[in-house]
């Protein structure tokens, strides 16, 4: 498996990242090196092995449905780049709305 420069542009777009030309070139090569390294895993026969999403699978881990105090609003908004003491403020999401 390998990625093209176009794939990298797509992934960058999804992550809202902007790269220069030579960076895109560089990342494409580096990603392909990583993928080639990971290819080694394909040498193993995994035909009859269930996919694993966690390395430890114990029993269920639950919370009971009990409300506990939340943050006060001042603290909740504290790290926001923009707020008005009530809401988080972000650039207009729907242009013209």
């Amino acid at each position, binding site marked *: 498996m390998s990625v093209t420069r176009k794939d990298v542009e797509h992934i960058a777009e999804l992550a809202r990242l902007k790269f220069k030309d030579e960076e895109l070139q560089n990342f494409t090569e580096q990603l392909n090196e990583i993928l080639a390294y990971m290819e080694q895993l394909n040498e193993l026969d995994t035909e009859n092995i269930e996919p694993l999403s966690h390395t430890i699978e114990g029993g269920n*881990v639950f919370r009971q449905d009990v409300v506990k105090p939340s943050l006060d609003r001042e603290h909740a908004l504290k790290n926001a780049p923009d707020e008005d003491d009530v809401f988080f403020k972000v650039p207009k999401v729907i242009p013209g709305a």
Partner: protein
Amino acid sequence: MIDKYEGVIGLEVHAQLLTDSKIFCSCSTKFGNEPNINVCPICLGHPGVLPVLNKKVVEFTVLMGLATDCTINERSIFARKNYFYPDLPKGYQISQYEEPACEFGVIEITLPDSTKKKIGITRIHMEEDAGKSIHDSGYSTSVDLNRCGVPLIEIVSEPDMRTSSEAYFYLSRIKQIVQYLDICDGNMEEGSLRCDANISVRLRGETRLGTKTEIKNMNSFRNVERAINYEIERQIDILENGGNIIQETLLWDADKNKAFSMRSKEEAHDYRYFPEPDLFPVFVDKEWKDEIAALLPELPFQRRNRFIDSFNLPEYDAEILTQYKDIADYYEKVISSTNDYKSASNWVMGAVLKVMNEEKIEIKNFPISANHLADLINIINNKTISGKIAKEIFPEMLKENKHPLDIVKLKNLVQITDTTAIGIVIDNVLSKFPNEVEEFLSGKEKVFGFFIGKIMQETKGKANPKIVNDLLREKISSTKRIME
């Protein structure tokens, strides 16, 4: 021309679960609180925090799965659905993708012509809700994250519906089931029940599916019907003009009665699902499943069938009475004090529902207690009052919480059943209108109604209608004999 096509509709329904706390943290799920007060580092998506699953969310999801004949998967896993939107602070929604909680279910709907249809349920999975963006203030968008992390189930149907009306009845059925299970309040206007529709059209007889579009933002039952009709017509129009359907997402605009393309970039649909590393798989073994199954209440279709079988009600009545659990409860309270099941059904489906709709009141606040309504029916049946008088008493009962008999006595409305007394009134009326008597005798049956009206007027509506009817016929006929 349109007849050669058929619509193919599948619905994705989101139901907000009625837990006290959120799905992965202990913040309150309360609706309508001040903005951004039910938030904590977990639902705000701060770095380094870990979600912990609310046990009740699993129980509610399994309840819904059992109520819709789903297979309850012994093991299910959470996944990250990645996308950027300001009301989703983590940059991903924790949902389920592969291995959802429930699969392969079915919901039966009843159409207006009483035919039944089974709609397949593809899957039911657990996920978290996003926050709320408020777009209408100034130059920026305001974000309230109280709703962020409120538990949802998503119920995905098979593309088994063919018309907007089938979609309407399917959605009504879901609302009914979640309300019976008491796991969601089912309020579409407030957004606790939401619906997206996948729609395509094809020529009748064709078995392959056409290209589908998805419509979002239909926030009422009526809008779901309208939007689906709109989209089916739009697609047929395009095909008839030789065009192709483009797979896209549309937003319903209820004011304009139109759907608009979101015109989002292709990227928007690349969610890159992968297993959520912060949450363990959920195991629902047979023992736990049985425990949850023991909590299942009587389901709507079971109650409907019981109403038909035990109370001898027509299917139509049973369907309407069981539409809402609390109305069915009210009906059952009424018939615990009267054995006239059909009259009770008529009163509840008729007068009671009418007042509820007109006055926009819920049955739990209905001014007439089930007991009093039952007694109203009883005093009609024991001939204390006529049905006509009952209709006059009903509004009085609405106004003040009084027993119907008290109103009857207070207003002196007790029915006259004394044949002698009624006979005197009839004789009087007949003697006052000899011409009309002639008319009747010469075959004008219509005049009979005129006499009934006059007699009722004389007795202020209190005469027993059946006695008046029988006695009047008897008396006119004997007049006839005399004249002959």
